[in-house]
């Protein structure tokens, strides 16, 4: 752990991403303790109030302004991040596990399994992901679980393709033959020898995917197929606020900024994490 932090402090971008991510996650986790205004309760007397620093710590303050029914935007952002982060990370982990396992299987076993899985990936890639997501959510109904499933569904193919390509080259390496020569079974080779070698690319795909999935989650909410109101979500805030873009800029700017900062922090941290996990750039502990 100390090694991790020491290495991190040497990378300015990585540190920035990490700190930003920690702040975002901490805010999301601690949201109930922050004594923020209720994100679902409007105050029609304060509709579309602009951001102000006045009376910052008084109970009725709206530092980032309010939306069209007078709900506090800061509170909605922070509460919304809980949902976004949970949905996106669950979907990315789920898609990552499925995609990595299937990618290793396809790459190492080859033959029928490989052809079957890759055709499945091809078919899915031929359908626009947004359309697929809309179809599935429309068919199953918009619930948190279904949004997670659909995002994972759009995610696993990216892992599977990249992992499979890696495995194809890895399985020809001599260490695989050495492993067989010491009597390791196929399952053991796949998950003890190949898997650690593809964790780094899987992690890189994972960070890219997390960023993409956050945006896609926002897009689903924007279209009204994500988490349902009154639960606050970033995509929904964008959708509701776009009408007031010319008169009340803060209704869309802050949710947009929240998405940008989250995605940026994930990407910066992910980039550094990839270098960190590469044993060639890692020095002896």
């Amino acid at each position, binding site marked *: 752990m100390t090694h991790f932090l020491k290495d991190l402090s040497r990378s300015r971008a990585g540190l920035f991403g990490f700190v930003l991510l920690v702040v975002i996650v901490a805010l999301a986790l601690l949201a109930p303790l922050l004594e923020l205004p209720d994100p679902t309760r409007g105050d029609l007397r304060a509709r579309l109030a602009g951001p102000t620093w006045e009376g910052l710590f008084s109970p009725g303050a709206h530092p980032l302004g309010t939306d069209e029914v007078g709900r506090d935007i800061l509170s909605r952002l922070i509460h919304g991040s809980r949902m976004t982060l949970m949905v996106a990370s669950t979907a990315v982990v789920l898609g990552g596990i499925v995609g990595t396992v299937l990618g290793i299987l396809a790459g190492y076993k080859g033959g029928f399994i490989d052809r079957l899985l890759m055709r499945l990936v091809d078919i899915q890639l031929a359908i626009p992901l947004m359309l697929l997501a809309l179809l599935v959510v429309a068919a199953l109904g918009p619930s948190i679980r279904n949004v997670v499933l659909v995002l994972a569904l759009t995610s696993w193919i990216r892992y599977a393709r990249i992992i499979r390509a890696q495995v194809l080259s890895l399985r020809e390496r*001599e260490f695989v033959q050495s492993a067989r*020569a010491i*009597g*390791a079974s196929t399952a053991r080779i796949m998950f*003890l*020898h190949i898997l*650690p070698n593809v964790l780094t690319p899987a992690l890189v795909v994972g960070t890219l995917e997390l960023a993409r999935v956050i945006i896609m989650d926002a897009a689903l909410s924007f279209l009204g197929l994500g988490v349902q109101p009154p639960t606050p979500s970033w995509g929904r805030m964008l959708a509701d606020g776009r009408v007031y873009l010319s008169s009340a800029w803060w209704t869309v700017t802050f949710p947009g900024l929240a998405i940008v900062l989250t995605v940026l922090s994930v990407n910066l941290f992910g980039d550094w994490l990839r270098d960190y996990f590469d044993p*060639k750039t890692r020095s002896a502990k």
Partner: protein
Amino acid sequence: MALLEIKNLTVEFDTPGGVVHAVNDLNYSVEAGETLGVVGESGSGKSVHILALLGLLPCPPGRIVSGEAWFDGRNLMALSDRDLRSIRGGEIGMVFQDPMSSLNPVLTVGRQLKEVLTRHTNLTGRALKARMVELLDIVGIPHPEARLSQYPHEFSGGMRQRVMIAIGMACNPRLLIADEATTALDVTVQAQILDLVRQLKHDFGTTVIWITHDMGVVAELADTIQVMYGGRIMERGPVRPVFHDPRSAYTWGLLNSLPDEGARTQRRLYQIPGSPPDMSNPPPGDPFAPRNPFATERCHREVPPLRDVGNMPGHKVAAWYDLPALLAAQSEKEQTP
């Protein structure tokens, strides 16, 4: 008693260009405690037949057409994959050519050494750790304890090959097979590794099959040399008679294409004419016949069987001609203008 006996082993590869006859009706045995040096050029079947008998041959495209390989009373060819896995790494250790890629780059050396030990022995905890340290110490790696937690890229080529040998020797195998184990190393490191293997043989009495294309390595290490070409044995016997009195034109060609050590003779190095045979369409007779200046008509037509020659027991050659007589006749012709 022979530790390993290979009978009628034939291996083929199905390729888009036709069937490649990689190993043809191979028969030989290795006695317990013996060191067998298998020499031959690329495509001679020297590596393929070893992979085949350990069940490591990729099938397809490889195909074991026929053959038995008796190891300690069991036919390796008839064993289930599961039984074969428990022999590999346990009773038969292997060391591969390229120490740079034979170790998994993302696992520590200790982790990889541990794998073979937990797979084939009951060692756990402190005893396991002690054995790991002992193994690295045996193969001459300084500071073994610290080295265990390091990654392969922190080792030099020679040190990595020592690790590979430690993994190969980890479970006190009865047979150690090294496939071009020193080829990727430079000469001084190669000499150190050969010393190490000789020491291990002396200490543990391991039987060794050393596959190489380097005659010098064989001369230094082996008791018996087996020269292979075109998936067949061309000549086989104790190292001394084979080197001093070769009976196969191929062995003779190989030996003559080596520079004489120390001698300042102005002799031109011999060059074996022609190129390796196309094994998808092998010559009908002696596979070496098309490149053999001494080939007789019968060599082109019929595959010669392995027969005893010379005055040392165990010296055998597969040839229709009598090489010493032909060589004598040739030098006589050169002297009389």
